[in-house]
């Protein structure tokens, strides 16, 4: 029963296993994001306070959420690699880092564009904005540490350790709007109890969230395949995989 689980630690198996899934994932992501964009940008009613400007939430919130999600993925995958010495864990961590950094950058840029009409400024030294910026620096630190060490295996493990240490920042970002009196608006979707958003606004946002997540998984799989080919370039299965 557990053999399929053990096989997940084998690079050729994972390489072959994730390949066919990518088109399906991309198609699902395209459907969800397509629905979310049309419903969110065209059909959802304008906000009573922010007018049409609130619509950037359909890109901003999912990417901010994914920036934390990707970091957690990176840290957990790194921990799996460190504890059980599984090569796939390090490959996943290495593949997730640039994607997470991109999502963080998108969240920061869309947030700045949203902040301009709402707060009158592109940037404010606010807890949530600052901690998100620190998240970006953490991503940079992890990525450069991995590249800096000459030995690839040691670079992987050092970067994994740093990612685990940096995990303390994730709850700080998530709860920053509750802990500090912040300019950034509080949580409206991800909280216990009833959501404060009407369905016509919420449904596209949830679709975008799911779409972004599936998109993240698809890109992660693609990057993982490339990462595995590069890491195992001396192995026989890579030569066979490239030949076919």
């Amino acid at each position, binding site marked *: 029963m557990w053999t399929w689980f053990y096989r997940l630690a084998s690079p050729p198996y994972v390489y072959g296993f994730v390949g066919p899934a990518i088109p399906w994932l991309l198609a699902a992501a395209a459907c969800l994001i397509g629905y979310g964009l049309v419903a969110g940008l065209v059909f959802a009613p304008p906000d009573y306070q922010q007018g049409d400007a609130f619509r950037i939430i359909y890109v901003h919130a999912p990417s901010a959420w994914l920036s934390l999600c990707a970091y957690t993925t990176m840290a957990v995958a790194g921990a799996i690699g460190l504890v059980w010495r599984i090569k796939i864990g390090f490959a996943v961590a290495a593949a997730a880092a640039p994607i997470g950094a991109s999502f963080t950058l998108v969240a920061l840029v869309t947030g700045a564009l949203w902040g301009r009409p709402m707060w009158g400024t592109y940037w404010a030294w606010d807890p949530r904005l600052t901690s998100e910026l620190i998240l970006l620096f953490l991503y940079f630190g992890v990525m450069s540490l991995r590249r800096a060490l000459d030995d690839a295996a040691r670079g992987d493990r050092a970067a994994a350790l740093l990612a685990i240490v940096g995990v303390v*920042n994730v709850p700080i970002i998530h709860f920053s709007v509750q802990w500090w009196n912040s300019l950034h608006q509080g949580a409206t979707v991800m909280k216990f109890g009833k959501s404060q958003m009407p369905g016509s606004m919420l449904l596209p946002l949830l679709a975008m969230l799911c779409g972004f997540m599936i998109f993240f998984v698809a890109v992660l799989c693609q990057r993982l395949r490339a990462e595995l080919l590069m890491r195992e370039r001396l192995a026989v299965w890579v030569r066979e995989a490239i030949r076919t």
Partner: protein
Amino acid sequence: MTVNISAAAAVILQRELLLGFRRPDQLLQPLVFFLIVTTLFPLALSAQLSLLRDMAPGVLWVSALLASLLSIDVLFKGDADDGTLEQLVLSGVPLGVIVIVKTLAHWLVSGAALVVVSPLVAMALGIPFGAFGTMMLSLALGTLTLSWLGAIGAALTVGLRRGSMLLSLIVLPLASPLLIFGASATDRAITGSGSAGALYLLAALCVLTSTLAPLAIAAALRITLE
């Protein structure tokens, strides 16, 4: 072979302190750096004492952060270059104990010394005498926390030839909560509003890093040394 841990810790502490005091310039350089950086701010911004007093906590803390980053760079480097570190790892003493003693010894000769000279800088920046106690306490807690965080970075970059830039890139994001609470404790002491809350948070950060960082430092050393 069994090793008496406390005896080993005492020997390592003695060795570290001896090495520190044998090279007085290495001891003084971070302090002089701290003084110079704090001098730069009034030169670059404004020499008005009222303005300086508003900026003083930030200036003090940023300078302390940079000075302790500068000095933590060499924490494991010398021992790694001449093979002492590998001998220590193989000695049978738990690596966690070794890194705790080494980091504490480093803090004694760098962080504690920085706390001692901080009143000099505080006076020049126009911080009132009444705030000195809180300021020194917050700096003592802060530099110790910084030593733990910096030691993680130093252990991760120990094998690199030019790792000091990367060390800053790794440690500075982790140190930012510390900077926020430390500067706010000093600021509140100057303005006279209660600084206890910020001090408690600093102490909590100090306890958190003192307990968890040795594990991370030991793990990082095992990775970079193997």
